[in-house]
């Protein structure tokens, strides 16, 4: 509808500043501060993998993975007050197939280690691991335990260790942000195919123990062998 008469409205009812800015083009959203920073050119020249690393580091999807005491502090890190989402990494995913980062929050014991490795294997590449707490470093206070794996690194590779028993949420935030920095700078090798798959029982070297268990375990069953004597 064309008319000489402008559409008149009750000025007192609207925020006139915003409207004025729109009409005169001052607040043009295309004239953003980012664009000002670029100068006259709307283009950025960068290396593709540098850009990709920046994307990866800025949007981390966490695996919702609770093991032991540290997972309570991990929940506090996700929730109000500490709010990990502020740093672009606070979306816990229930499925490992949707996650980039696994925080290992607790003690790994013999029964759980194969399951954890399975979960790790189910995550798509590139994937990163943050070890939370002393247990994932060395077994922590339970290091002497007969059933405890002396550090998560015996099972899966770990990018960042956050020490503490348990670490405070602030420490975990720091660890995650450090990981983001490393990923963005291309320091944590993003795509590597790591030879960390579970062995089948028939792959194990024959010895006394394997012979003894031969009638209990099928040849194609996935197993994990612990040599506690060689553990640190």
């Amino acid at each position, binding site marked *: 509808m064309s008319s000489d008469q402008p559409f008149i409205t009750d000025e007192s009812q609207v925020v006139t500043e915003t409207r004025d800015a729109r009409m005169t083009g001052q607040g043009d959203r295309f004239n953003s501060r980012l664009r000002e920073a670029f100068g006259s050119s709307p283009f950025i020249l960068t290396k593709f993998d540098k850009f990709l690393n920046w994307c990866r580091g800025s949007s981390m999807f966490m695996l*919702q*993975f*609770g*093991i*032991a*005491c540290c*997972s*309570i*502090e991990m*929940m*506090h890190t996700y*929730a*109000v*007050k500490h709010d990990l989402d502020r740093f672009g990494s606070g979306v816990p995913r*229930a499925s*490992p197939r949707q996650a980039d980062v696994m925080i290992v929050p*607790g*003690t790994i*014991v*013999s*029964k*759980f*280690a*194969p*399951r*954890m490795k*399975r*979960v790790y294997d189910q995550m798509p590449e590139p994937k990163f691991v943050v070890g939370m707490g002393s247990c994932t470093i060395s077994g922590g*206070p*339970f290091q*002497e*335990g*007969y*059933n*405890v794996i002396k550090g998560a690194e015996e099972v899966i590779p770990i990018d960042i260790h956050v020490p503490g*028993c*348990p670490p*405070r949420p602030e420490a975990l935030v720091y660890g995650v942000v450090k990981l983001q920095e490393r990923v963005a700078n291309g320091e944590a090798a993003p795509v590597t195919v790591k030879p960390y798959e*579970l062995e089948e*029982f028939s792959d*194990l070297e024959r010895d006394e*123990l*394997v012979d*003894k*268990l031969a009638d*209990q*375990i099928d040849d194609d*069953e*996935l*197993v*994990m*062998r*612990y*040599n*506690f*004597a060689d553990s640190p």
Partner: protein
Amino acid sequence: MSLERPDSVDDAAVERTPDEIEALLGDLVVDRDDHLNAPGFVIRPDTVQETLRTLKEQAGYDHLSVVSAQEYENRYESIYHLKKYDDPTQEVSIVVPADKDHPVSESAEPVFRTADWHEREAYDLIGIEYDDHPDLRRILLPETWQGHPLSMDYDKDRPQIATLPAHANPLEEHHKDAESDTMFLNIGPHHPATHGVLHLKTVLDGEQVADVEPDIGYLHRSEEQMAQSGTYRHQIMPYPDRWDYISAGLLNEWAYARAAEDLADIEVPEYAQVIRTMGAEMCRIAAHMLALATFALDINGDFTATFMYAINDRERVQNLLEDLTGQRLMFNYFRLGGVVWDLPEPREEFFSKTRDFLDQLPESVEEYHNLITSNEVFQMRTIDTGILPPEVAKNYGATGPVARGSGVDYDLRRDDPYGYYDELDWDVVTEDGGDNFSRLLVRMREVEESAKIIEQCVDLLEDWPEDERNIQANVPRTLRPDDDTEIYRAVEGAKGELGIYIRADGTDKPARFKIRSPCFSNLQTLPEMANGEYIPDVIAALGSLDVVLGEVDR
């Protein structure tokens, strides 16, 4: 049914002297082996069921707290710690020695259902075999484990192999006809609704649960071994914090403190008892808040707001605990004979912070009632689902909010008083529904009771004369309780009766340290609640049990 009331009903409440119990058991008793907390009767390993049945039906000992097993130089031994739900101070221990070369003992499972898991654990860790047990296999360690780790000749350095089995359908062979098509479903060990690393082997018939079997041991951190290799005085206290790690640290520390103090005959100053009581109730609030938060999430993923609200309240109470103890989660604040330090200075600031927290708490609780308990969706999901009748709860040894949600009026803070609880004015909360909703209500009302206790403690502490603030009794640097003294002591943890059995051997370390975890017994009731229900109700029932796997597996 006979109209005559059986004698046992009248006899149940009567307190009997040890000699009367011995007379009741008659020839069954071979010897006496008294513990510090209870008279102990030695019986032959093939009369376990008869003895326990007599005590349960004729003397009213209806609560099998725990079965603790151990190996001696010349024999194996299982101890059945019995109590009464009506009066837990009436205790009796049944000691069952078994042959060193061939340790076999009769199972108590037909008398007390809860013995099932306890005896499986004893078999797993110690190596005693139980005759007549329905399903004797390992419970905490992988099936393929070699040796029994708490037995004497165990070699910690030997290699082990754990498997990742693809599970078979356990009902398949019973349903061979073509019409049945049950489905096997693994829930966990990595699953958001299992509150940690619990594995539920579930068999579904359509949407209904035909069978569910909890598979535990994914967080078995050898806690008992750790305690047995630490000295009484200082080295054990940090570990209880890590059993029930949902901020319930002080409640757990109290379990160890109470057992060890009674064992070494240490009197705790009154001032320290008040501080302990206050700290412990703060922990209970924090623990129940998380139970509420995660339960709401289990019921419906849209209750994220409730989760955030509850975490917010937890942060508040954790700040208070941090001021008091110096740590957010693993407090390590109790010492044998008292606490490690006095209230933080300036005291007035701490008191006013605590009062601020208590003042806003009723408002928060009101908010939770608005958000969840009065929510129609929530009510539909929780009322009349996951029903646990009181008799079943007792048979499984359930305690804490789970038992109180089924109308079992059992709370050790009142029934077997310790600390400063019997001087304060508060109530034990029970609900008669026995369903998921009742258990939640019990927790929410307990939060209010805890607030009442804290308030009274703050009043007491504020007026405490400055020169009588004694936080620590005189305790020898090294504790060496007498050889062969045994004690079982329990406190009311966040999840129920948390007990410790200690046998001293004259050294500065316990010879046997057994943890009676409330969650271990509570979790055992899950099949009773879940079988025949729909699968979302299993998740709701599990959430309402509020198990914490660090305590189940230890």
